[in-house]
């Protein structure tokens, strides 16, 4: 294998991005009372900007309520964003008419988290997989033939096409979901927790499959997950989110080797490593408290209520995402640089 070289390289970083997200905001109204007046807003995504280069895999990680799923859906306009702009291959998705949006969706598809809920139980697999093609005007027989090809590409047999979703295991269903996303030959696939519902042995199969498909079909992935080990494995660059904000963006090695945001460090140290010797010697920082509600986020830096090194400044002013070095951005007033480790500072 020669693919040991990192897939991102510098000319990719300077080329036209396949996906560009500028200051995307998605707030959901909280309605109450008889007249359903809006009494507040859930600030699910609160000003996210990112660029994704062709053929790249960008991982988006964070805990529940951080807005990662809403971000993915807002990019595809499955949820209408409140403000901000999204461009795919230079064209503004957020300004597209409904009919144009449908055409644009040819270039961007989604794989959903729950392989049990995302497939219609009353449709046979070849209908599920060929439906996107039929919607986009391919005749049924041709669409089915193509569906067969993509079923083969994800490691299912053509005769599986006649079966229904309940006849498949979780891992196989997720393969069906992936085949469905592939049929329109999109450039970008948003994968929303594609493996978190699967057992570990099956999870690894699906991850390997996603990697193979990326090489074969020249795909760009936005990989949304809460599992940092999986994200590390598959991503070129990683975006860490907390309560609707991006707190850190870096290429994979930088993010995992020199995390600069206290939240990223705490998140990494919270993950148990399957090796008792490493576990015995690790310095862990256990974050105190719960994640605040996105309907009522803290003032200033949203992480400050749980941050062990927060000061008064953090309560007053929200830190902007600033560049530490090319490609490594962090939103913190006191980024942990030059090998600073949160667990040492806490002691």
């Amino acid at each position: 294998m020669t693919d040991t070289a990192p897939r991102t390289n510098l000319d990719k970083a300077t080329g036209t991005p396949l996906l560009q997200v500028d200051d995307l905001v998605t707030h959901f109204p909280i309605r109450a009372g008889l007249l359903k007046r809006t009494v507040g807003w859930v600030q699910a995504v609160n000003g996210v900007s990112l660029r994704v280069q062709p053929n790249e895999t960008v991982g988006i990680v964070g805990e529940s309520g951080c807005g990662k799923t809403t971000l993915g859906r807002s990019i595809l306009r499955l949820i209408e964003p409140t403000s901000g702009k999204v461009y795919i291959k230079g064209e503004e998705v957020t300004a597209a008419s409904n009919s144009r949006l449908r055409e644009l969706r040819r270039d961007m598809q989604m794989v959903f988290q729950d392989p049990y809920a995302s497939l219609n139980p009353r449709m046979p697999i070849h209908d599920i997989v060929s439906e996107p093609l039929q919607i986009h005007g391919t005749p049924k027989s041709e669409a089915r033939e193509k569906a067969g090809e993509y079923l083969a590409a994800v490691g299912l047999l053509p005769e599986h096409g006649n079966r229904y979703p309940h006849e498949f295991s979780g891992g196989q269903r997720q393969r069906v979901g992936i085949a469905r996303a592939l049929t329109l030959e999109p450039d970008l696939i948003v994968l929303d927790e594609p493996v978190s519902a699967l057992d570990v042995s099956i999870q690894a199969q699906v991850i390997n499959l996603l990697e193979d498909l990326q090489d074969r079909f020249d795909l760009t992935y936005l990989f949304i997950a809460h599992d940092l080990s999986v994200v590390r494995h598959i991503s070129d660059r990683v975006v860490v989110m907390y309560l609707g904000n991006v707190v850190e963006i870096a290429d994979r090695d930088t993010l995992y080797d020199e995390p600069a945001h206290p939240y990223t460090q705490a998140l990494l140290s919270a993950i148990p490593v399957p090796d008792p010797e490493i576990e015995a010697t690790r310095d862990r920082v256990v974050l105190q408290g719960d994640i605040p509600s996105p309907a009522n986020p803290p003032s200033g830096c949203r992480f400050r209520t749980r941050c062990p090194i927060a000061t008064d400044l953090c309560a007053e002013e929200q830190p902007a995402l600033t560049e530490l070095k090319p490609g490594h951005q962090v939103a913190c007033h006191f980024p942990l640089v030059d090998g600073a480790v949160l667990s040492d500072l806490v002691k």
Partner: protein
Amino acid sequence: MSKRLLEVQDLTVGFKAKKKPVAHAVRGMSYGVERGETLAIVGESGSGKSVGALAMLGLLGRSAEIGGSAMFDGVDLLTLKQKELRTYRGRRIAMIFQDPMTAFHPAFTIGNQIAETIIVHGLGNKKEAMTRAADLLEMVGVPEPGTRVDQYPHEFSGGMRQRAMVAMAIANKPDLLIADEPTTALDVTIQAQVMEVLAEMQREVDAAMILITHDLGVVANVADRVQVMYGGRIVERSTVKTLFQQPRNPYTRGLLTSLPRLDGSREDRLDPIKGSPPSILAMPKGCAFEPRCPFATEICKETGAELEELWLDHESRCHNHAAMPEWTDVIDTKVAT
């Protein structure tokens, strides 16, 4: 050898449906738990890891056919009537369930539900029990326990609810805690908090713990011994250190190579187990893992292997232990490629 707190012998659990053969979820499981130790039971969905524990506590309902014995401090739990079992559940054996959203009754306050376990076992009157409930909440790190004790489950976050569940479990100072995927529903930073509290409380009341989980990371962190289950049987069992450093069963090895690791060499390709786990309605005739096993031979199709003692405190169930490469070589070649 000192007498063990719990000694399970040849436990089997089958489920009977109309006009169908009994489907066996647990197919002969023998193990023991010493006082104060933490035993982890690891397996994927359908491996029988939870069902075995539920069966011991009489929580499976009538469709379950249970065999074998489970001696807890000299008494076979499996022969007890529900009424007698009730004197054990929540008193000497306490359970922590996976889903803190559904394990509490939504219409009673958290304090009420913790107090109930104390009152039911006659360990205090209402007033004492409520005071104790507040103390327990404080012990597990619920802020403002005085107010929280009168709140309902929906007013608690997932992490707080799981802390309350731990508080309820240790309320009567049990000898044995059974934690069934205690942190699976939680975010990682919250998971770390809850595991810390759980371990602390276990020490506090000096209880043994059976930790049922699919997460090998959690196991490495807290368990003393581990047993890995597949297809209703224990396939490998050892101390935590040995199991992670010298796994001998092909399934355990497959699990470990399937895992993307935070500290692993990043360009590694994952080495998954092929295929998917067998259904309990259609178990292979021989070894349950044979259809997915890279080391399978003819004999594996015919008969399943017995647990074989490979070394002190290390057992594995496989016909082909000798044919497997050294684990260190498996890891090294992975890093080298």
